[in-house]
C-alpha cells in the first residue's frame, strides 16, 4: 500500500527519450521551421532586435570586422616610411616587415601605404560597412524588408493566380458558351508569361516607370502569380466531377458559390505547397533586383543591395557581402526543404513541379 | 515438385527457389521454395492471384531481380544442364534472349520508342548469333513474317508508336523467338490486348511452339488461357506452389482448396447463380507469413494441423501433387 502511494507522488515530468526526439526530427522539418520562425520574428520586430539604427553613419568606425576577427595593428590608414630597422615610431616600418606585407620592391626610404584592418569587437557583432553602419542592424532590417516585400507580393500574386486557376478550371460551368475559350485564353496567357525572362522585363519596367517600391511589389506579384493557375486548374478539373459538387449543383447553388465554398477548400493543399516553393524564388529575385539596383533603393537596407555594396570591398571587408548572402542562402534553403516536405506530405502529385 | 516419370531429362528444372526482398516492413518472401520441371515441347502454366509470386519467379529465372532490395537466397535453376544461378552476369546475359526468352505484358511500353522495330529485332540477333550483317536483316524479316506482320520489309523501319497494340505484341513475340530459345516465358502476354486479338495471338504462339519444339511457360491468372494453351499447370499462392498437375487433372480433380476456390470463381455460362463466388479474406502479407499453411485463414476445410505446420506435397495421381493436409 505504502509503495503505491509513493509512486503516485513521484514527479510528473516526462522527459522524451532519444528515440522519441529522433522520431520527431525525422518526420517534421524542424530545422527549416526554426530558422524561418526566428528570421520572421526578428524581421518583424526589427526595431527591438537591432542594436543600432541601420541608417546611422559612423565614419570613424567604418569597415570594422565581425567580433571574432583580431587584427595586427590599429584601425588606420597609415603611410609609413621604410626604414632599415623596425622602429617604435608609428610612422616607420622595417624593411623586412614591409617586404613581408607584400611590398617586395620596397627600399629603404620609400613611403608605402598600408591599409590596416581594424579589430572586431562585441559592439558590432557583424562588423560595420564602408560608411560605418552596423551590419547586424542592417541585416535585421534587410530581413524585414525582404519579409515585407515577399509577403505582400506573394499574397497578391497568390490571390490573382488562384482566382485565375479556379475560373479557368470551372469556366465551362460559369459561362456555358464561352467557358472553354476562356479557359484556353487564360492558360495561353500563363504559358506566355512562363517564357518571359523576368529580370530583363523587370529592368525594362524600371527604366520606363522608374525605381519605385510599388513597381517592385507589382513585379514580384507578377512573378508569384504564374505558378498557381496551372495546378489549381488541374485540381479544379478533378474536383469538378466529385459527388458533393454534383449535389450542390442539384440543390441549386450558383457556380460562384460552388467554386468558393466547395471546390476552393480542396485546392488549398496544393496552393500551400506551391506558395512555399515559390517564396524562395521570390526572395532570390528580389535579391537579384536589389543587387542590380532595381529593387529596394538605398539607403534602405536590403540584402541584395548590401551584397552589391560589399562587392567593392571584398578584399578588405568581406563581411559586408558575406552576411546578407548567407542570409539569403539560409532562407531559401529552409524554404526549399520546407516546401519539399509540404509537397510530400500534402500533395505528392506535385513532384513534377520544379 | 517432382514431375512424372520421364525418359529424357527436363529442359528446365527449378529447385527450391527462394527470392526475398528487403523492405522497410520486413523481409518479403516473394518466392519461398518453388520447384518445378519443364520438359521439351511442353507448356507449363503458372496461375495465381497478383502477389502470389508468379512474376517474381519468372524474373528470378531470368535473373532480372533488382539486386539491392531483392536477392535470390537459395535454389537452383538448371537450364539445359547448367545452373543459371552459378553463372556470372556476363555469361547470364549470353543466355538471356538466346536460350531462354521473355515476352512481357504490356506491348505499349515494352518497345523502346526511339528505336525502329528493325533495330530492336536485329539487336537480339546481333548479340547472340555470329552471322554476317546482311544475314541479320534477313533473319529479322524472316522472324517478323513468322509472327504474321504484314509487309514486313516496309514495317521494319517503322517506330513502335506507328504500330497497333496487337502488332506490337507480335513484334515482342518475334524478338522472343528470334534466337530459337529453348524456353519461352510469356508473362500475361494477352492481358492488354483486345479479346479478338488475344485468340489470334495465342494461336500464333501455339503454332510457333509446334514448329520449333520450344517449351513455354505461361504466366497468367486466366484459366481460359490455361485450358487452351497449357499441358501442365502449377498453382501458386503466397510464394509457394500449392498444386501441380496436368491440365485435365487440375480442372477435373482440383485437390487443393485454393485451386478449388479459383476454379469456382470463374463464372460459368451454363450455371445460373445469384451471386458470383469470391474467395473470402485476403492473401497474407508476404513479410508476415503465418506459421503453417498460408491459406489456412481462408480455407473452408481448415483443421488445427493446418495452422501448426506447412503441409508437404502429397501425391494425388501420377504427376499430380498438392500441398494440403487433407490428403495426409
Amino acid at each position: 500500500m505504502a509503495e503505491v502511494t509513493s509512486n503516485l507522488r513521484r514527479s510528473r515530468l516526462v522527459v522524451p527519450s532519444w528515440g522519441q526526439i529522433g522520431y520527431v526530427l525525422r518526420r517534421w522539418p524542424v530545422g527549416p521551421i526554426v530558422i524561418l520562425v526566428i528570421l520572421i520574428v526578428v524581421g518583424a520586430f526589427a526595431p527591438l532586435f537591432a542594436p543600432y539604427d541601420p541608417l546611422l553613419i559612423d565614419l570613424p568606425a567604418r569597415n570594422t570586422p565581425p567580433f571574432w576577427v583580431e587584427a595586427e595593428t590599429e584601425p588606420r590608414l597609415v603611410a609609413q616610411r621604410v626604414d632599415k630597422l623596425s622602429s617604435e615610431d608609428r610612422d616607420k616600418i622595417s624593411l623586412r616587415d614591409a617586404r613581408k606585407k607584400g611590398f617586395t620592391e620596397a627600399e629603404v626610404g620609400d613611403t608605402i601605404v598600408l591599409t590596416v584592418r581594424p579589430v572586431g569587437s562585441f559592439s558590432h557583432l557583424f562588423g560595420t560597412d564602408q560608411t560605418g553602419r552596423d551590419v547586424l542592424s542592417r541585416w535585421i532590417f534587410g530581413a524585414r524588408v525582404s519579409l515585407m516585400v515577399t509577403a505582400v507580393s506573394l499574397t497578391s500574386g497568390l490571390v490573382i493566380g488562384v482566382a485565375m486557376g479556379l475560373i479557368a478550371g470551372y469556366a465551362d460551368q460559369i459561362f456555358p458558351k464561352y467557358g472553354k475559350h476562356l479557359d484556353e485564353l487564360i492558360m495561353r496567357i500563363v504559358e506566355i508569361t512562363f517564357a518571359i525572362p523576368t529580370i530583363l522585363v523587370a529592368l525594362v519596367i524600371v527604366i520606363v516607370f522608374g525605381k519605385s517600391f510599388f513597381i517592385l511589389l507589382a513585379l514580384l506579384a507578377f512573378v508569384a502569380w504564374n505558378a498557381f493557375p496551372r495546378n489549381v486548374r488541374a485540381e479544379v478539373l478533378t474536383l469538378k466531377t466529385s459527388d458533393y459538387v454534383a449535389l450542390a449543383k442539384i440543390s441549386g447553388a450558383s457556380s460562384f458559390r460552388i467554386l468558393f465554398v466547395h471546390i476552393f477548400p480542396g485546392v488549398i493543399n496544393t496552393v500551400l505547397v506551391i506558395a512555399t516553393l515559390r517564396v524562395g524564388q521570390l526572395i532570390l529575385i528580389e535579391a537579384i533586383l536589389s543587387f542590380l539596383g532595381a529593387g529596394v533603393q538605398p539607403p534602405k537596407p536590403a540584402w541584395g543591395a548590401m551584397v552589391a555594396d560589399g562587392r567593392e570591398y571584398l578584399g578588405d571587408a568581406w563581411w559586408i557581402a558575406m552576411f546578407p548572402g548567407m542570409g539569403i542562402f539560409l532562407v531559401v534553403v529552409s524554404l526549399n526543404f520546407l516546401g519539399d516536405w509540404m509537397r510530400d506530405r500534402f500533395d505528392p502529385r506535385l513532384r513534377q513541379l520544379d | 515438385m517432382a514431375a512424372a516419370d520421364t525418359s529424357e531429362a527436363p529442359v528446365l528444372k527449378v529447385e527450391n527457389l527462394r527470392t526475398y526482398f528487403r523492405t522497410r516492413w520486413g523481409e518479403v518472401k516473394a518466392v519461398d521454395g518453388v520447384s518445378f520441371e519443364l520438359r521439351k515441347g511442353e507448356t507449363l502454366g503458372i496461375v495465381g492471384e497478383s502477389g502470389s509470386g508468379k512474376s517474381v519467379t519468372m524474373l528470378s529465372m531470368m535473373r532480372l531481380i533488382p539486386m539491392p532490395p531483392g536477392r535470390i537466397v537459395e535454389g537452383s535453376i538448371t537450364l539445359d544442364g547448367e545452373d543459371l544461378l552459378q553463372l556470372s552476369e556476363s555469361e547470364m546475359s549470353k543466355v538471356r534472349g538466346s536460350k531462354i526468352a521473355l515476352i512481357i505484358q504490356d506491348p505499349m511500353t515494352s518497345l523502346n520508342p526511339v528505336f525502329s522495330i528493325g533495330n530492336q529485332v536485329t539487336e537480339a540477333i546481333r548479340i547472340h548469333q555470329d552471322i554476317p550483317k546482311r544475314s541479320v536483316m534477313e533473319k529479322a524479316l524472316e522472324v517478323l513474317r513468322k509472327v504474321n506482320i504484314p509487309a514486313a520489309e516496309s514495317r521494319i523501319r517503322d517506330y513502335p508508336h506507328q504500330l497497333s497494340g496487337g502488332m506490337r505484341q507480335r513484334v515482342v513475340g518475334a524478338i522472343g523467338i528470334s534466337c530459337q530459345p529453348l524456353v519461352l516465358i510469356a508473362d500475361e502476354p494477352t492481358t492488354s490486348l483486345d479479346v479478338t486479338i488475344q485468340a489470334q495471338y495465342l494461336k500464333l504462339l501455339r503454332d510457333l511452339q509446334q514448329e520449333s519444339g520450344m517449351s513455354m511457360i505461361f504466366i497468367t491468372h486466366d484459366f481460359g488461357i490455361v485450358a487452351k494453351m497449357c499441358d501442365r499447370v502449377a498453382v501458386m499462392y503466397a510464394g509457394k506452389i500449392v498444386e501441380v498437375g496436368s491440365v485435365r487433372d487440375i480442372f477435373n480433380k482440383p485437390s487443393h482448396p485454393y485451386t478449388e476456390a479459383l476454379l469456382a470463381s470463374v463464372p460459368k455460362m451454363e450455371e445460373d447463380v445469384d451471386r458470383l463466388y469470391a474467395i473470402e479474406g485476403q492473401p497474407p502479407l508476404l513479410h508476415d507469413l503465418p506459421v503453417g499453411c498460408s491459406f489456412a485463414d481462408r480455407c473452408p476445410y481448415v483443421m488445427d494441423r493446418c495452422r501448426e505446420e506447412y503441409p508437404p506435397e502429397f501425391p494425388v495421381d501420377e504427376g499430380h501433387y498438392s500441398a494440403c493436409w487433407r490428403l495426409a
Partner: protein
Amino acid sequence: MSRFIIRRISYMLVTMMVATLLVFSLSRIVGDPRLLYVQEGGYGLSPEAWDALGIKLHLDKPVAVQYLYWLKDAVRGDLGDSMLDRKPVVEIMYDATGATLQLAFFGWMFATLVGIPLGVLSAVKRGSVWDYMGRGVALLGQTLPVFWVGIMGILVFSVQLGWLPVGTRPEEFSLKHYIMPAITLGWFSAAGYLRLTRSAMLDVMDSEYVKLARAKGVNATMVLWKHAFRNAIIAPLTFSSLVLAGFITGAIVTETVFSWPGLGRLAFTAVDDNDFPVMVGLMLLFTFMFLIVNLFTDILYAYVDPRIRYG
C-alpha cells in the same frame, strides 16, 4: 520534317513581331516618349533638340505609323543612338555580343558536363556517394543566388587564395579568366540538368522496354547507354532552351559581378543610366536569341524523339 521546320520558323517570326510591338508600346505608354530619352536628373534637352527629337520620332504622325517607321529602321539596323555614348545602339551591342556568347558557351559547357553525368550517376548508383553529391549540388544550385556564388568565388579563389584572376575579359584568350564567370553562370542550370537527368533516368530505368532489353540479353552497359540514356536525354534537351533563357538573366548578374564587357553588363549600365534606346535594343536582341535557341531545340528534339517527327 521540313514542314515542321517551316512551321516553327514562321511561328518564330510571328512572335518576333509581337515582341517588337510590345517593346514599341512600352515606349509609348508613358505618354510622350521623349521623356524617356531624357536622363533622369540629367540636363534635359534644349527646346530645339526637343523638337528635333520629335521630328525624328515622327511624333506628329499617328501611333501606328510611328511603329512602322520604327520597325523599318530597326530592320535596317538602326536602333538609334545610346544616350550615354552617342554611339549607335547596334554598334554597342555588336561589340558586347562576342563577350557574352563566349561566356554563355563556357557556362553551358560547364552546366552540361557537370549536370548530366552527375545526374546519370546519381540515378544509376542510387544511395551511393555520387547520389548524395548529386543531390547536394542540385540543392546548392537552386538556392545559392547567382551573384553570391560569383562573389564568394572571387573572395575565396582570387582574394584569399590568389589562384584565379578576378574576371574581366582579357584582350587575348586566357582560359583561366573564364573559369569563375562560367561556373557562376552555369551553376544554377547545372543543378537543373542534374535533377532532370536524374529523374528521367530513374523513370526510364524502371520502364518495361529496359526490362525487355535486359531480357534480350543486352549487357548492362549497353542497356544503360543505348536504351536508357537515349530516352532519358529527351527531357534535359528540352530544358536547354530554358537554360539559355536563364542565361539571359544570369548573364546580367554574372557580367556585372565580374565586370565582363558583355550584353548583360550593358543591360545593367543601361538601367543605371536610364539609357532607353540601349534597353530596347537589348530586349529585341534577347528575344531574338531566345527564339533562335528555341527553334534549334525543337528541331533537335524532333530528331531525337521519333514520336514527334511522325506522330
